[in-house]
């Protein structure tokens, strides 16, 4: 199971933020808008990741990743990270707005 540690952590992040959608965040219900927000950012951070790996700025423990890699030695987990974390951030923001809408006299 050690090899799935990083991936499982990302699954936990998705699971922890999923209820926000039910609270009225309406993020997954706008897949086009979500894709256009997350994908360009993921691409930018993947490029940064490739440069950092090539420059030996950081590396990944082979013990805690699956070993599946994108070009430039980027672990597949990093791609998942760059998709999951922004989605969690947007869900949090939209979740805060959804909760604020229920507060009387407050503008989100």
């Amino acid at each position, binding site marked *: 199971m050690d090899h799935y540690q990083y991936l499982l*952590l990302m699954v936990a992040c998705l699971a922890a933020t999923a209820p926000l959608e039910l609270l009225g965040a309406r993020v997954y219900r706008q897949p086009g808008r979500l894709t*256009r*927000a997350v994908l360009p950012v993921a691409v930018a951070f993947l490029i940064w990741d490739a440069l*950092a790996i090539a*420059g030996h*700025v950081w590396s990944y423990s082979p013990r805690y990743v699956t070993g599946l890699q994108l070009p430039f030695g980027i672990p597949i987990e990093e791609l998942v990270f760059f998709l999951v974390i922004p989605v969690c*951030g947007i869900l949090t923001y939209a979740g805060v707005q959804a909760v604020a809408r229920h507060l009387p006299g407050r503008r989100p």
Partner: protein
Amino acid sequence: MTGLGYTLPAVASVAVVCAAELAVLRTGLFRRAAYWAAIVIVLAFQIPVDGWLTKLSAPVVLYNRSATTGLRFPWDIPIEDFLYGFALVTAALLLWEYQQSRAEGQAR
């Protein structure tokens, strides 16, 4: 590399994201209470998630000592990670909001 190969890009990423909002996107995100509330919540959740990834006892991600300031807090999280996380989440939120502002502009 002696030049803080993570610290400088991390600072630059925050500058780029802020400049993109102020000069190009102009979504007004930074004036929204919901954004700052979301950032505080994201930061709070970054600590356990990132703390797990960077813990020195069993690190998933390993940093080149010469690429960072060496300041790790809380637990073993390199402080640069907080700039990185801020830039990642804020960039996605800016694009999320940008599409909304464009859609509203077109509807008018």
